[in-house]
């Protein structure tokens, strides 16, 4: 029983992380139909910025609790700097190209940013461990968990709920849905599609950076974390159904639980559990868990 509970908690911890890294990706895809590989770099940028900003914050002897605010600031900073730069500077010239070509455009951005990060931060790992333990820990059965994990779950839920609320209840959300549904029609009705893209990409970038910033205290920030993360985020988004918010949430939970169960019961499957889940889900539901109905062609 206690093991089952552990599977559940470990799984949900992992799910919350997966959701945070995947939600920006699915948002961008949903609106712009771009599967953004550079999301991995934004994650890495968020992690590096957070680690170095919060690191110097703590080194200067500021309040340790303030480091959480610094993490968020880092995410916002990366979002508003890198997001517009990529969208205005590059992507807007590419709209209308094939989806696969757009994937490769973002892959090129990813490659460029990888080296950019290396030039800026070097190859030495950055360690920012203080915020992880600072909130204390709690016991479940014979296991101890840091409160930070709970906080991550809370953030994941908050992000999910906020986005759902914005989409469903606000005017901006309705505009977004109009654009998602039919870009040309939305443009014809006077919606500034270009602005919508701009905002969406910036928010998506911010979410990617947020994932990195919040992960920074749990890991050693090192070259290559973006590449590792982007494949996971891809898998989650595809399993959930591209562009679907609830899909991403459900997929994150599914993948998180499966991985946790694999580690607990069948450690040898851990290496490809996520790909097994992806293959099985796609075989059963070819367009992922939540997929938009396609309009009839003739």
């Amino acid at each position, binding site marked *: 029983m206690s093991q089952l509970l552990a599977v559940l908690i470990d799984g949900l911890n992992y799910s919350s992380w997966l959701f945070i890294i995947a939600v920006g990706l699915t948002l961008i895809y949903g609106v712009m139909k771009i599967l953004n590989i550079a999301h991995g770099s934004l994650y890495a940028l968020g992690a590096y910025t957070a680690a170095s900003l919060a690191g110097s914050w703590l080194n200067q002897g500021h309040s340790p609790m303030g480091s959480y605010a610094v993490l968020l600031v880092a995410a916002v900073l990366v979002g508003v700097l890198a997001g517009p730069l990529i969208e205005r500077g590059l992507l807007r010239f590419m709209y209308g190209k094939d989806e696969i070509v757009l994937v490769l455009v973002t892959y090129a951005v990813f490659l460029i940013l990888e080296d950019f990060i290396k030039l800026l931060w070097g190859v*030495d790992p950055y360690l920012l461990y203080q915020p992880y333990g600072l909130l204390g820990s709690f016991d479940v059965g014979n296991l101890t968990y840091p409160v930070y994990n709970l906080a991550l779950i809370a953030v994941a839920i908050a992000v999910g709920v906020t986005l759902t609320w914005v989409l469903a209840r606000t005017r901006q959300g309705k505009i977004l849905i109009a654009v998602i549904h039919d870009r040309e029609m939305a443009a014809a009705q006077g919606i500034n599609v270009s602005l919508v893209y701009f905002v969406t990409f910036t928010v998506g970038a911010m979410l990617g950076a947020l994932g990195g910033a919040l992960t920074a205290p749990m890991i050693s920030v090192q070259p290559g974390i973006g590449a590792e993360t982007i494949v996971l985020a891809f898998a989650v988004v595809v399993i959930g159904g591209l562009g679907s918010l609830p899909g991403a949430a459900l997929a994150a939970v599914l993948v998180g639980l499966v991985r946790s169960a694999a580690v607990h019961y069948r450690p040898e499957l851990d290496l490809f559990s996520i790909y097994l889940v992806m293959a099985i889900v796609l075989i059963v539901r070819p367009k992922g868990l939540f997929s938009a109905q396609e309009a009839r062609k003739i």
Partner: protein
Amino acid sequence: MRSNRCLLLSVQAVVCIAAVLLAAVASAQDKPIRVGLVTFLSGPAAGPFGVPAKIAAEAIVDSLNAGKVPAPYNIKGFSGTSIELVVVDEAGGATKQVTELRNLVERQNVDFVIGYISSGDCLAVAPVAEELKKITVLFDCGTPRVFEEASYKYVFRTRSHATMDAVAGATYLLENRPALKAYGGINQNYAWGQDSWADFTAVMTALKPEAAITTSQMPKFGAGQYGPEISVLLQSNSDLIHSSLWGGDLEAFMLQAMPRGLFSRSQLLLVAGEPYLHRLAGNVPDGTIVGARGPNGVFAPKSALNDWLRAIYKERTEVNPNYPAYSVALAFLGLKAAYEKARLAAIQAAVPMGAAKDVKEQMEKAYGRPPDEEIIKAFEYLTFDSPAGKVMMKLGKGHQAVTGTAYGTTRTANGQVTIGNIKYYSLERVQPPEGVKSLDWIKGGMKPGKW
């Protein structure tokens, strides 16, 4: 009379040849020896391994070229010829590395290659180095397979292979904790992690068969998130957790395991933990057993060479050299020793008995680079001094180095992690002798061989 004329003739001939050689070689002497250095400059292995090795190599080359290395390495460069580095990124996989080795040798015309941290790359490039007939010193990869599965003429490895990490680790553990009942492991799911765990369990099974294995966690390389693994380890009631994690993965694991109290339940053995201790201060529990994959880093015996390496490395980085820095030092010094030994031998063979002293001196100055054949002959079964003590090229038909190794236990005081209770293991105890495969030797009870 006749013999006198002969002598005269031959002296004249020698002088002529020497003059020609002098002219030819003077330019060769100006031309530095090009050494290709292949090490990770990007990817997760760059920070902990690749870049420290590169920094160390650059510092060593500068120091060699300035003739500032302690004896017996105080001759400038290699036999007076300065050294020039050509650095190549090891990232990109084995296929890429084979291509790059060919480019390095045939396009960049390097004279020697020192390189390779990844065992996969070592396995892949060794036959190519052989085909290209280019002396290649593998400096940091650990898999015993390189010389156990094949034998090479042009390929050398100046560090011990990884078997000793497991043997010494388990021995050290049982010496300090004879009552150990159960142990588990967390290792990366790729060759290094799998081999480390397989070797360790094999040694443990041989030394203490009644100790139970609780769990073997194999997260993927670069996983970064170890929540479920830590839960399993927490619940496994292991006295000890064996881990060969390194770099960012090790640091992430430690960060995540520490607040969850894993180390108050289980002792930790980090096969390759030594380089990270200064970074992990505050996140390493006391009593953690750590190794440095040889008598490197804090385990390096006190010597002038060791002081030298520490000094030149610290000058550039402000931290102590880690084991890849030591490994690269071993490669340069080993190659230098072989080169100079070969040159000496070649001069002795070339200078006729009783030749006039000035001719001999001219010859010595003039004689350029010794042929590869001679360097290889000199390198095989060579014993040389290094910052990590004596290194002997005794395995793999004289191509694979052996050293002893050491393990110690951590203690944190005043925010600094120190290593105490250091124990050295001589090579007989931790290395299989020539001709015996590592795993067979372990299973056979690790009988000390004849060296």
